[in-house]
């Protein structure tokens, strides 16, 4: 189950962060997301020489915490997407797929002429589509 998704701007400032848990761990999730930026920095600064991951937007598993897994995605426009899930075994394919759809949603959100680049994303439409994508992920990964 996805517990949190976040969009982080190129100055590492949070643009959108939404958690999907009833538990009171929204704050912890903030911390987790924030920390994951370190891993992203590491990955980007010395990218893995080996094959497929080179410059791919999908950064894969960033790091496991005691009971979460954190995945990352870095767009060409230096915007970071972060996904925190509780699932222990997640198929990369699912995550990739998730990020693809998420990116599309993000693209539409910033295509809103009234959205000012670099500012927090307040669009309702975006929020809605995100939650649908998140739900969809739950289903796919469950199966």
């Amino acid at each position, binding site marked *: 189950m996805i517990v949190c998704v976040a969009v982080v701007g190129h100055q590492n400032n949070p643009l959108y962060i939404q958690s999907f848990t009833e538990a009171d761990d929204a704050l912890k999730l903030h911390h987790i997301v924030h920390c994951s930026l370190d891993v992203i920095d590491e990955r980007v600064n010395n990218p893995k020489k080996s094959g497929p991951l080179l410059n791919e937007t999908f950064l894969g598993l960033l790091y496991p915490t005691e009971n979460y897994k954190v995945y990352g995605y870095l767009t060409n426009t230096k915007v970071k997407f972060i996904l925190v899930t509780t699932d222990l075994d997640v198929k990369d394919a699912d995550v990739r797929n998730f990020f693809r759809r998420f990116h599309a949603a993000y693209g*539409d*959100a910033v*295509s*809103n*002429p*009234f959205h000012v680049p670099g500012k927090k994303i307040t*669009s*309702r*439409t975006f929020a809605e589509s995100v939650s649908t994508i998140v739900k969809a992920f739950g289903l796919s990964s469950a199966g």
Partner: protein
Amino acid sequence: MSRASGPRSGDAIFASVERVNAELFTLTYGAIVRQLLTDLEEVEEVNKQLDQMGYNIGIRLIDEFLAKSNVSRCVDFKETADMIAKVGFKMFLGVTASVTNWDADGTCCSIVLEDNPLVDFVELPDTCQGLYYCNILSGVIRGALEMVSMKTEVTWTRDMLRGDDAFELQVKLLKQVPEEYPYKDDD
């Protein structure tokens, strides 16, 4: 006049004309509106300017419309309105509009759009209530009709950006202006 080759269908024309990504169009329009909002501040003023721009576009576009659609005469308002809705919208925006709500004496009707490329991605911020985002369209129609000598008044009655289920433009024919001899006879 040759009635031989009648008006062509909107789809046929749209298929034949050069086309571009709607995104480019949509975003450009959006950027223009945003710029106007920041420059002119007053929402009302922005509406006015959008309409004006639309008008200017309309008076250019009409000839393309006529040439491509092969329409030879726009004397009857009813017929013309239909033309615009069925052919005009299709051949330019690739969407079809329907004409409804004719009033008794056939001088006022509504053009209804379910789908409108202008508003993809658009979400009106709370600060811009009162903005007719698509006001350029009304301008275009007004301008185009004026070129075929119909003075009209075009107003929005429904707007999806304001939560309505469709876009509805009310087109009201004010008068038809025949062309008159422009030169004074005394010179």
